[in-house]
């Protein structure tokens, strides 16, 4: 009955309505995800620009390209933008927002308007932060340590603090929305034990967002009040305590690391089974390890403070707990690896990112053990060893996961296939560039080069040159997907509904999906990852 013309014009969430209003006032979780995608991409490139400045300055030991103050602002704003405006919202607000309702067979999130509100809050905070940047920026380091931030810095600490205070609410609202949605909106038959691990991991992330973010909000308000009203909370001359700030800051900012990495683990748990054509190994353990990471993650914060003047015995306790939190992460890595065992593994782009993720996250996680080891941390704390470690987790882990996920769900999001050859090339370039950038930093850190140094002793130069060279390769690796994903919007092959023959509910609807996701509410009668019941995908990715 439908004519060919009508079939090609099939309504989906992208062409259901046109015009700027239909985007700015949308309550469709998929459109809001795209709004987030645009805004975090903008911030990723601003943050990347500051990274470029840092690497260029460090090419030579003398401080010659930037002034000392400019350099201090560059690393501060690189950190704050990448953490608060890119990494924390990245996977949850884009992929989580887009996919969670579809994965559980729902029409939308529980609170669609709150979802839109969260984006507007993000934008308001982003505008304030850009204003801060344009009027001179901030130089406290992303950590805002007092009393430097509260009494000594002459830069725009108040604006930056308020911007990050505000952006926190967008993250709280996203977390709230996810928790309620997962509890209340699951399709009939979709029990907790049938939930995709993507949803489990985001559920754990949301709990951290809900419980942790208010603490950083309070902390930043205290810094702002201290600067404006001169309260003296962190001023030792008036009975305040600057170390109290560090406790409050890390009480959020350590769990925040898990806000960044858990969603990436969520992506892994979808990609690896799909491209191994196997159910995930040890489903319950992978799911529960997400919850364990979220829970234990809240009681390890003082491992950032082993040389800050905390008591000997609290250091012992926090060291022990920090080793404990490594166990659930190890469980995940082992289970993903075991998932490939006796599988049918293809080397499609998302799978390349996944294998890269496992490797880099393993290195990031293992070097975390060095920092949990008290006597070793004393030496490497605040050196480039720490910089290398957390970039392995946050860039090698979180960003690899984000890129892998973007490729995996790109056909669903855009309705087009990306060019597979370019995709694989970019994945390899990112992997090589990343390692060349950050591996030398482990060595120069152990040699003793402190972080946040504008100029440094000449014997450290070799490693810094390697690092800068790697960073330029990494930049190419990040620009490539930008280019070919945009290209594919127009020239890419039309994507089938389920190009990977994946099991998730999101693949059992059209690509791109209709506004309300499903023609009728699905009823789930199967376990997650029943890949034995799925045919092999058509050779869209295996040319030969």
């Amino acid at each position, binding site marked *: 009955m439908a004519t060919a013309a009508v079939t090609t014009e099939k309504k989906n969430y992208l062409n259901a309505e046109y015009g700027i209003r239909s985007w700015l006032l949308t309550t469709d979780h998929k459109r809001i995800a795209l709004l987030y995608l645009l805004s975090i991409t903008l911030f990723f490139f601003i943050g990347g620009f500051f990274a470029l400045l840092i690497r260029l300055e460090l090419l030579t030991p003398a*401080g010659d390209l930037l002034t*000392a103050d400019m350099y201090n602002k560059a690393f501060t704003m690189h950190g704050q933008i990448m953490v608060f405006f890119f990494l924390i919202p990245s996977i949850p607000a884009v992929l989580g927002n887009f996919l969670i309702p579809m994965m559980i067979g729902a029409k939308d999130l529980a609170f669609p308007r709150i979802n839109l509100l969260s984006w507007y809050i993000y934008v308001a905070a982003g505008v304030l932060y850009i204003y801060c940047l344009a009027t001179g920026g901030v130089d406290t380091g992303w950590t805002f*340590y007092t009393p*430097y931030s509260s009494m000594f810095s002459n830069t725009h600490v108040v604006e930056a603090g308020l911007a990050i205070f505000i952006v926190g609410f967008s993250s709280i609202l996203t977390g709230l929305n996810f928790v309620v949605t997962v509890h209340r909106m699951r399709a009939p038959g979709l029990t907790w034990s049938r939930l995709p691990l993507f949803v489990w991991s985001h559920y754990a992330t949301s709990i951290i967002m809900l419980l942790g973010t208010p603490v950083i909000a309070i902390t930043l308000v205290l810094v702002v009040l201290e600067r404006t009203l001169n309260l003296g909370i962190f001023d030792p001359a008036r009975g305040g305590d600057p170390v109290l700030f560090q406790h409050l800051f890390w009480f959020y900012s350590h769990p925040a690391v898990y806000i960044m990495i858990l969603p990436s683990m969520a992506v892994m748990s979808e990609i690896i089974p799909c491209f191994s054509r196997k159910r995930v190994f040890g489903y319950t*353990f992978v799911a529960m390890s997400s919850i364990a990471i979220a829970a234990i993650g809240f009681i390890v914060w003082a491992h950032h403070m082993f*040389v800050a*003047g905390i008591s000997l015995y609290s250091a012992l306790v926090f060291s022990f707990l920090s080793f404990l939190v490594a166990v659930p992460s190890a469980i995940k890595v*082992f289970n993903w690896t075991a998932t490939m065992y006796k599988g049918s593994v293809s080397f499609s782009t998302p799978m390349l990112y996944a294998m890269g993720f496992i490797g880099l996250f393993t290195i990031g996680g293992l070097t975390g053990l*060095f920092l949990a080891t008290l006597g070793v941390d*004393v030496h490497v704390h605040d050196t480039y060893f720490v910089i290398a470690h957390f970039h392995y987790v946050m860039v090698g882990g979180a960003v690899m996961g984000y890129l892998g996920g973007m490729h995996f769900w790109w056909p669903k999001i855009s309705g087009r296939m990306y060019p597979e050859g370019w995709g694989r090339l970019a994945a390899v370039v990112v992997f090589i560039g990343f390692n060349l950038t950050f591996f030398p930093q482990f060595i120069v850190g152990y040699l003793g080069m402190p972080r946040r140094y504008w100029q440094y002793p000449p014997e450290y130069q070799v490693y810094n040159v390697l690092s800068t060279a790697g960073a330029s390769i990494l930049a190419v690796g990040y620009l490539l997907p930008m280019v070919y994903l945009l290209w594919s919007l127009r020239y890419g092959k039309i994507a089938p509904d389920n190009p990977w023959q994946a099991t998730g509910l999101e693949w059992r609807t059209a690509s791109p999906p209709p506004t309300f996701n499903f023609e009728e509410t699905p009823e789930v009668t199967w376990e997650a990852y029943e890949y034995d019941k799925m045919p092999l995908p058509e050779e869209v990715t295996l040319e030969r």
Partner: protein
Amino acid sequence: MFDNLPLWPTAASSHARYEDWLFIFLTVVSVVMTVLIFAVIAVFAMKYRRRHGREATQIEGSLLLEIGWSIAPLGIMMLMFAGGAVLYFIMRSPPRDSAQVYVVAKQWMWKLQHMEGPREINQLHVPVDRDVELIMTSQDVIHSFYVPAFRVKQDVLPGRYTTLWFRATKPGTYHLFCAQFCGTMHSGMIGEVTVMESKDYQAWMTSAAPSGSLAQTGMTLFQQLGCNTCHLNDVQGRGPVLKGVYGNPVQLGDGRTVTADENYIRESILVPAAKVVSGFRPIMPSWQGQVNEEQLNELIAYIKSLNPPPTGEAVTAGAPGGTTPPPSAK
């Protein structure tokens, strides 16, 4: 040979060798684990790559494996924990008879005061094979005293003292860095630690021509500020006698007992009403803003010098005249 490509930092303190072994242990474990994971992924990816006519074998999981790969890493990690904890414990427990040096950090320099009197800026001279304890505070923001060759680092906080100790084992000159971001010239807040043979150190100490020991300077200040009008030498004045107070428990008016360490003495000078000794009224004025960090160190050094020296040891710091305790105090 590798002049331009250093791979391992010089190890020049008693902590350094321990720390290096611990680091090597961790590195070996990490390399083995990383290679193992990479190898397994590579083998699985090749061996089980997608081929026509071969299907994946579905496996639910294995409780035994899950328990195994949770417990085994935990066991290895407990070794790391124990090794790191022991070293940290040593680092946080300065030997009793260490030579003490006071450190005052400010944006962007290190000021050091030796007990014997010499003062230095961005330079620290220490003798080899001698335990040295640094008692550190900051005039402004948080700094961090870091000597990579010694593998020691400690944040330096405003408003209180933190300590760090080391025993240098190799003469030479080593980097001193500020490791905690402290503003514009953070990367310029660097200096050198010079480790000298004992006799060279003595020669340096003599040539540094001290005008008097830190305790002697402190005594002069103690009198200039009029502290001695209330804190008398032997008889009870309006303030407690300070002889023998340092390092010992003090009974407070509110029933608590505190140890009279550097932080307590500092607080008692700057905020006297905070912890008043039992039997005294809170009449002492605050000296906040009137004595600077270096003068505080001098006063503390003086009060410390009032303690009777440990039996059988000569007075090295040169206790000021009139306050030398009776030789048979114990």
